């Protein structure tokens, strides 16, 4: 059976660990024998600005990125960034969002305000919306930095890849040895956060 090409877009704020999350996904997808292409952004864009990467997998992937309206899954590490890139999602696409607000500079200084109704507005879009409290969970685990791994766990569960391979081995290989247990727990708790949701059938690209 031909495995259709899927596109996951990861976004957030520079420093939130998006590259690490995508590394875990990529390593796993490679092990599951997918063709994978993933594009990152480096340089000035990393200095606390908004960061996006795209990751595409399937039996044969041509392009490393797609345009607006063509993304299957949006993996957003921050609420405002979820809103900023939601238009990249296909109709009925999947939006996984970390319930975390990082105010940009203009909000910090009081020149603009952080939108208060993001969940309502995203909930009203024609997409499958999964806001999860990954930041809060990470704090509960004692290290806010692992929220990216929690999000990765939730994503794997939601897109139905959880049983395809040994993800704990993938996570173990991707992190520093001293943080192994913490990250494994984070990954598991991410899956746990969406345990009541059935794996989502993604709409086809063509």
């Amino acid at each position, binding site marked *: 059976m031909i495995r259709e090409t899927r596109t996951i877009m990861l976004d957030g*704020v*520079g420093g939130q660990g998006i590259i690490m999350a995508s590394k875990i996904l*990529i*390593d796993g997808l*490679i092990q599951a024998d997918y*063709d*994978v*292409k*993933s*594009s*990152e*952004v*480096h*340089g*000035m*864009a*990393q*200095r*606390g*600005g*908004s960061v996006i990467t795209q990751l595409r997998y399937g039996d044969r992937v*041509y*392009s*490393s*990125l*797609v*345009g*607006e*309206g*063509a993304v299957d899954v949006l993996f957003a590490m921050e609420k*405002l*960034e979820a*809103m*900023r890139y*939601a*238009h*990249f*999602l*296909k*109709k009925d696409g999947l939006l996984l969002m970390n319930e975390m607000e990082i*105010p*940009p*500079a*203009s*909000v*910090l*200084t*009081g*020149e*603009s*305000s*952080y*939108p208060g109704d993001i969940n309502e*507005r995203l909930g009203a*879009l*024609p997409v499958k919306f999964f806001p999860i409290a990954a930041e809060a969970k990470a704090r509960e685990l004692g290290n*806010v930095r692992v929220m990216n791994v929690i999000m990765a766990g939730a994503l794997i569960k939601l897109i139905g890849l959880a049983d395809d391979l040994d993800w704990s081995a993938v996570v173990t290989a991707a992190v520093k040895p001293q943080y192994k247990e913490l990250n494994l727990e984070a990954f598991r708790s991410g899956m746990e956060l969406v345990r009541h949701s059935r794996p989502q059938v993604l709409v086809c690209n*063509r």
Partner: protein
Amino acid sequence: MQKVLLTGNEAIARGAFESGVGVGAGYPGTPSTEILENFVNYPGIYAEWAPNEKVALEVGFGASLAGARALVTMKHVGLNVAADPFMTMSYTGVNGGLVVISADDPGMYSSQNEQDNRFYARFAKIPMLEPGDSQEAKDYLKEAYLISEQFDTPVLFRLTTRLSHTRTPVLLGEDSSGPVARDFQKNISKFVMLPGYARKRHLAVEERRLRLQEYAETSGLNQTVWGNRSIGIIASGVIFNFAREALGDDASYLKLGLTYPLPIQLISDFASQVERLIVVEELEPFLEDQIKAAGIAVEGKSLFPRVGELDPVLIEQGVRGASRFEANYQIPDGLPGRPPIMCPGCPHRSVFYVLHKLKARVTGDIGCYTLGAMPPFEAMDACLCMGASIGASLGMEKARGSEFARRLVAVIGDSTFVHSGITGLIDHIYNKSTGTIIILDNRTTAMTGHQDHPATGLTLSGREAPKLDLAALVRSLGVRSVRTIDPYDLKATEQAIREEMDREELSVIITSRPCVMISKERLLNEITHQDQCTGCKKCLRLGCPALYLAGDRVRRDEELCNNCAVCEQVCPQVKGETAENE
């Protein structure tokens, strides 16, 4: 053989190793930087950061002359700097193979322009290869060295951000058994470009161009992929993959891996077998214009934007008039933007705070500190290219006189100063300016990801090196007023800038503090102002992401804060003053 996932840049480093490259040189620049950072880790090779791209290419030239295979890396605008040796190396040709990597940045993710460097190949009459993924990046690079040596020419290897920073699977080749080396042979008429010799070499370049054109017609680097023949697409690099994604088997493709010189006969044959011929290319109509000039009817830029990146949706819209995909909703208006900002504890912050406060006219330069042009500082009036701050401030003074220069400051980073600021400073001295130049010395090339340079005391391979003493250098050039200050000391920073701006003589201020991202020193300042905040918001004028407004009081995010304590130095409560309204 092992299959691994590599970025384009990692794959090029691997390809250079497999090709037996002996010498690699470059200057950091997004998106090219990681090529040498990876290449240096392979055994038996030499790799260096040069002070700038021109020197890097000259090092490559020398290595090639001596018989080694050489790799020279830079971003697109770096090739402007290296254009002088590049243009004439076309005439001299090579001994050991030489490949120049130009990593272009369509969409300007981290660049000041999005020039299309494919024109450099045609300009210099140097063959150009454009890989489309990491596997091709590695394989084409090996091919590039063969072309370089077979045709006695440097080769331009053109990448874009989406190639450099995209991870795709690569089947590794054999490890190199060590750098390849040809003998050095004295050959004055080939390598000494006196006019009499250069005239003969120009004839050789023309003859080479014709042989390369013939080679292009049959090279395996150019490939046809047949699908539906109602549409024929000509594309190269990552754009071929984008087009294939967009159109699948509904089109046929001529994928060009060698994009200069063009295989006109091959293109003409392809054109005759498809109903509608379309060139899909990012930025300029480089291929389109040449194909049209050859008398072949083709569409191109009438269908696609000439500005910014292409993606599969844009390509589908251009070819078919509409895409299967379109945004189902609009991004809401008025979302607060999230531009890049100086990090918490960034040593540049206090300098721009002061420049803003003093209403200085500031010529800026290329680096993280270009962010000084953004709110809340907006303390920059120009930023053009590497090193330009210094020459530009001299020009402003000469246009408006030394009274104008009392408010005029040039700011430049340490790495940028070494790259191309020194000659500008010599002009200030030689032609008697009275301006002020601030060297923001954070002891690294920060924006590209913290590379060493001649003033850091370390090389690309991590070895210790003589540390260029910037203050001593500047003094030795003839600047009499040179002072080094700590930018975390706000009062001293303000005093130094005030005094040097007032001084009717050229002066250089060096602000010395390591970039907070690499600094091992954490200032353990006890930060106390939080409890005393009266809500005057003066500290918010620092634009520090660790400070935020909670109700009518400013709070400090301790996770983000790097304890530079500059905020305390602007706080009237901590200073024991009453809030003043400036």
